């Protein structure tokens, strides 16, 4: 009963007793990271893609052949100690060619994915935040580009960029690879716009561009990162398909697509010409999309929960 004495009035202006009791709550970032770490898919993808990139960088070092070398004594040979992936009809070393092709495909993918995501983020955020005529016009352009399969547009435009270097292909792929994501970002921005913290900023008098830069884009950044990751695989697929049909990378440049085109005719009889580049291609894209999917599950807490 003496305890009652302890509880005399406290200063109401100092109600700091409402402090955090349990351990320090985790931030969103570390939460995503810890979820990622628990996802086997993420590890498969990350380790796989890491190995592929390392291999693309250092894989040529132990190989005796360069990708332009012709071994006229071993034309059309099957995989051997000398030519690890075999040789083509004119004696090109498939191992060296695969690595060089992979480098190009990787560069294209790793640049196009983020580039398209940036376009998607800006266009989507502007359309979603501004609304009105801006929104309608942008959505129309997006819909139009979705109606015309982009593959056909690439083929149509191929006469132009065939004359330019393969770098032009990067911009072309990015220019037509942002639409679906822009729609997602737009939808997300529209719901963000109704959120109180954006309203609060508006009522404080913060101007539109600052709101987009300071509040909208950081809050859709997780979507953009996912998109950039998934875009890597998508861009590599587009590039190889174009190159396969002769509309993409042009000789003397080599990409996985041109390599597969060269190996296509012999696919059934000398499978190594086709199988090795194809396998590398599939593994690369698969790893990128596994990372992207694991990211999506980690960012969206409801998408991965075990519920029933």
């Amino acid at each position, binding site marked *: 009963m003496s305890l009652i004495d302890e509880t005399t009035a406290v200063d109401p202006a100092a109600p700091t007793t409402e402090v955090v009791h349990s351990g320090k709550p985790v931030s969103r970032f570390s939460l995503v990271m810890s979820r990622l770490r628990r996802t086997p898919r993420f590890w498969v993808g990350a380790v796989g893609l890491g190995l592929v990139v390392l291999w693309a960088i250092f894989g040529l070092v132990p190989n005796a052949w360069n990708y332009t070398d012709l071994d006229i004594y071993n034309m059309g040979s099957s995989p051997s100690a000398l030519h690890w992936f075999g040789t083509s009809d004119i004696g090109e070393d498939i191992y060296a060619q695969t690595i060089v092709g992979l480098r190009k495909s990787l560069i294209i993918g790793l640049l196009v994915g983020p580039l398209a995501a940036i376009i998607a983020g800006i266009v989507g955020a502007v359309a979603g935040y501004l609304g009105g005529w801006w929104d309608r016009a942008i959505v129309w352009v997006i819909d139009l580009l979705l*109606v015309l*399969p982009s593959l056909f547009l690439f083929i149509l435009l191929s006469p132009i960029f065939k004359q330019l270097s393969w770098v032009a292909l990067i911009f072309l792929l990015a220019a037509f690879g942002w639409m679906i994501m822009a729609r997602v970002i737009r939808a997300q921005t529209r719901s963000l716009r109704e959120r109180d913290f954006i309203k609060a900023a508006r009522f404080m008098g913060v101007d539109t561009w600052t709101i987009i830069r300071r509040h909208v884009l950081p809050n859709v950044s997780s979507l953009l990162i996912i998109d950039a990751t998934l875009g890597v695989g998508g861009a590599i*697929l587009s590039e190889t*398909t174009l190159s396969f*049909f002769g509309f993409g990378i042009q000789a003397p440049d080599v990409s996985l697509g041109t390599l597969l085109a060269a190996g296509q005719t012999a696919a059934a009889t000398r499978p190594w010409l086709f199988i090795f580049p194809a396998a590398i291609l*599939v593994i690369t894209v698969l790893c990128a999309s596994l990372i992207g999917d694991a990211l999506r599950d980690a960012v969206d807490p409801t*998408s991965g*929960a075990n519920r029933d």
Partner: protein
Amino acid sequence: MIGFIAKRFINYAILSAIATLSAYVLASIILNPAARYLGRNPRPSDDTINAILDGLGVNPNTPVIERLWAWIVRLVTQGSLGDTIHNTSVISEMTARAGTSLRLLILGTILAALVGVALGVWGAVRQYKFSDQAISFASFTILATPAFVIGILLMISATMFNNLLGIQLINFTGEYTAGLDGGWWVLFWDRAAHLLLPTIALALMGAAGYSRYQRSAMLDVLSADYIRTARSKGRTRGSALVRHGVRVALIPMSTYFAYSFATILAGAAVTELVFSWHGMGEMLVQAISQSDINAFTGAILFNAVLILIAGTLSDVVYAALDPRVRV
């Protein structure tokens, strides 16, 4: 509901029209139909080339706007899409090829949708169990494989299969065996056998995408309150998921179908090329490589009309599934 579908139809119709017209303009700017004649030996005179190009309505000396106008007027008044560079009418070329493409597209899409939806639902219900992991991994692998690689891999396995059996059971080059004699039945079987691999290739790609999407749509539904309500009424979990869950999870699929159809079209074109089918995809690619503006526009129009139909169809399905849009 009629209003909703009419609105969406008009929206798609305008989109398709603009897409076709911009394709015509783009093609007219980029492609150079004269180049084909300049390389000939003996080189035809400029007048001759001009006359030929004028006849086709693709002379680069005429302003693009004028050519576009002429193209529209001809389409509206005569119902003609002009002539190809080989002096056949684009329409007749399209009728010869459309059936081939449609056969592949319709079969492949239906198969893809059925398999994809079933696998997606199964994967979601069995989330993180072995079957879900297997389906997911298979879907990812297929989605990571370009269409042409799938086609070629299927052909390699068919060859190995045929070699193993010692007979030519699965034919895959072209749409039919040239010069095959026999009754209607024999010809039908021949075409069906040729259809097998391309359809599988297309259906695999579609099903992989659909199953991923259906899985996540279904996962959203699994935790929905109304599933809990259905169970609280006395349904078992399985029955609540089927009766209440799948029905709702199909709604987003109908929208996804419209958006994925363009991808399917591109996939179908690639498949046709790989299997040497003379379909619309081949027509489109050939038109570009031969700088044939009229044929290209015709092929794009074909695709645009298909997207118009697919889009409207998906809206009809959407309105039928979701009472909230029936106004």
